[in-house]
C-alpha cells in the first residue's frame, strides 16, 4: 500500500516540507511506499519579503518569483491547480480542474490573504506593500511624494511579518532624509493596542528609536473607516487622522476552505502548537501562516515548522511514534533604516531581545533573502 502525503500550498512552508520529505523519504519514494503531491494555484513560487523593498525602488517584484517546479525535487508530484473543497471524512480534495485527490496525510500550508474590503474605504483610499500589485502601485506613489502626511496604519492582527510595519516607517524615515525631503514629510505610525508592537520586548526597544526619529505614534488605533475623498482615517476609539498617503497593513484572513471544512475560524487552522496536528480532523496538519499557533506569521516559522512536520510524517509513514515537536522558534531580522538592521530570535519560552542595529545585520538580512532560493530547495 502506498501512503499519499498531500501538501496544499506551495509557498515557503509547503515547498520546504516537500523537499525535506523528498530527502528524508528517498527510499520510500523510490519504492512507491509513499507518494508526495504538492498542490499550488500559481505556477510560480512567490517570496513575499521582497515586497518590502519594492516601494523604495530597491527590488523588483519579479525578484520574488521563480517557477515552483524548478524548486521542488523531481520525486514530488507538483500540480498547479486550485483546491476548492476539503472533505476530511472521506479524505478527499476537490480541485478546479482535475479529478478528486485522495490523501492519507494532508498538510495545509495555504498562507494568508488580504481582506481590505472589511474596512470601508480602505481599498479605494489605502496602499499596501503586502501584495505584489500593492507594492508596485505604492512605488509610484512614493516616488512622486515630496511632502505631506504619510500614515502607516496597522489594521490587521494577526498579520504577516509583525516586524514589517516598523521596518517600513524606519526605512521611509531614512529614505526621505537621504533625499533631503524629511522636513516636508510627517510620518505617523498607528497600532491597535497600547504599544507599538504586539510583543512587549520589541515594543520597548522600538519606541525610543521612533521618538528619536520624529516618527509620530498613535496607539490604541483600530481603523474603522477611511474617507478617500476627505483623505482621513478614523478609529473605533474615535481618533481621526488626515493623510496625504495612506499605507496600511490590511486585515488578514486565511483561505475560506479552512472554515468551510470546519477546521478553524477566519481561515486559520486550530492546531496543537507543538505537534501541528489539526484539532478537528485526523491526519490533517497545518504549518506556516495557516496554523493558529500564536507565533508570528513569518517565513522563518513556516520553515522551522516544515522541518518538524517532515520528521513527524516520516515517523508516521514508517509506523514509528512521532517525537519531533515545534518549540515556537521564530527568527526575524528588523530593518531599522536603509543600511542598518536588528535581529531577534525567540520561542514559546524565551522572549526576544533585539540586537543593537548595525550595518552587518542589514547585510545579513539581504544575504538571507538572497539565499532564500536555496532554503526553499531544502539545501540550507
Amino acid at each position, binding site marked *: 500500500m502506498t501512503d499519499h502525503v498531500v501538501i496544499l500550498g506551495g509557498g515557503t512552508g509547503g515547498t520546504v516540507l516537500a523537499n525535506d520529505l523528498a530527502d528524508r523519504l528517498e527510499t520510500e519514494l523510490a519504492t512507491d511506499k509513499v507518494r508526495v503531491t504538492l498542490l499550488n494555484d500559481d505556477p510560480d513560487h512567490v517570496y513575499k519579503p521582497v515586497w518590502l523593498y519594492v516601494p523604495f525602488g530597491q527590488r523588483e517584484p519579479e525578484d520574488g518569483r521563480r517557477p515552483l517546479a524548478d524548486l521542488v525535487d523531481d520525486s514530488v508530484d507538483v500540480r498547479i491547480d486550485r483546491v476548492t473543497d476539503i472533505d476530511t471524512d472521506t479524505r478527499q480534495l476537490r480541485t478546479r480542474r482535475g479529478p478528486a485527490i485522495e490523501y492519507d496525510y494532508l498538510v495545509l500550508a495555504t498562507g494568508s490573504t488580504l481582506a481590505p474590503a*472589511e474596512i470601508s474605504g480602505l481599498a479605494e483610499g489605502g496602499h499596501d506593500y503586502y501584495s505584489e500589485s500593492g507594492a508596485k502601485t505604492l512605488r509610484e506613489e512614493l516616488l512622486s511624494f515630496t511632502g505631506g502626511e504619510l500614515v502607516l496604519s496597522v489594521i490587521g*492582527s*494577526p498579520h504577516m511579518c509583525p516586524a514589517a510595519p516598523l521596518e517600513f516607517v524606519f526605512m521611509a524615515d531614512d529614505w526621505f532624509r537621504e533625499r533631503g525631503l524629511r522636513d516636508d514629510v510627517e510620518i505617523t505610525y498607528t497600532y*491597535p*493596542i*497600547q504599544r507599538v508592537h*504586539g510583543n*512587549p520586548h520589541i515594543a520597548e526597544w522600538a519606541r525610543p528609536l521612533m521618538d528619536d526619529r520624529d516618527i509620530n505614534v498613535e496607539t*490604541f488605533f*483600530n481603523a*474603522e473607516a477611511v474617507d478617500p475623498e476627505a483623505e482621513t482615517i478614523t478609529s*473605533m*476609539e*474615535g481618533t481621526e487622522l488626515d493623510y496625504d498617503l495612506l499605507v496600511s497593513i490590511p486585515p488578514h484572513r486565511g483561505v475560506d476552505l479552512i472554515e468551510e471544512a470546519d477546521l478553524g475560524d477566519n481561515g486559520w487552522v486550530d492546531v496543537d502548537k507543538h505537534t501541528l496536528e489539526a484539532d478537528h480532523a485526523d491526519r490533517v496538519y497545518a504549518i506556516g501562516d495557516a496554523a493558529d499557533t*500564536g507565533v508570528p506569521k513569518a517565513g522563518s516559522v513556516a520553515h522551522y515548522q516544515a522541518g518538524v512536520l517532515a520528521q513527524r510524517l516520516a515517523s508516521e509513514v514508517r509506523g514509528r511514534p512521532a517525537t519531533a515537536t515545534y518549540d515556537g522558534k521564530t527568527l526575524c531580522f528588523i530593518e531599522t533604516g536603509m543600511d542598518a538592521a536588528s535581529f531577534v530570535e525567540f520561542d514559546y519560552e524565551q522572549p526576544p531581545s533585539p540586537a543593537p542595529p548595525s550595518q552587518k545585520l542589514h547585510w545579513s538580512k539581504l544575504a538571507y533573502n538572497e539565499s532564500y532560493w536555496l532554503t526553499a530547495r531544502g539545501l540550507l
Partner: protein
Amino acid sequence: MSTPDTDPAATVDARGAACPGPLMDLIGKMREVDSGAIVCLLSDNEQSVTDVPEWVEEAGNELLAVEEREDHRAFYVEKQ
C-alpha cells in the same frame, strides 16, 4: 460590577493565547457586533487584567464585569 443578566451576543475563547492575542481577538469581535451587544472574552493571560480595561475605556465601551473562574477570567464588555 456584576455578571450581566442578558446573554452575551458572542463569546471569544482566547484561553491559551499569548498576549496580545486575547485583546486583539476581543477587538476583532467588537468590530462585528452592533452597539448595545455584549461580548464575553475568556482569557487566562495575566496581561488581560490590565490590557482589556485600558482598551475598553479608550474605545468608550463599558466593562460590565470580570468573573474569576477556576483557571481563567471572563470579561463582559458592552459595545456603546
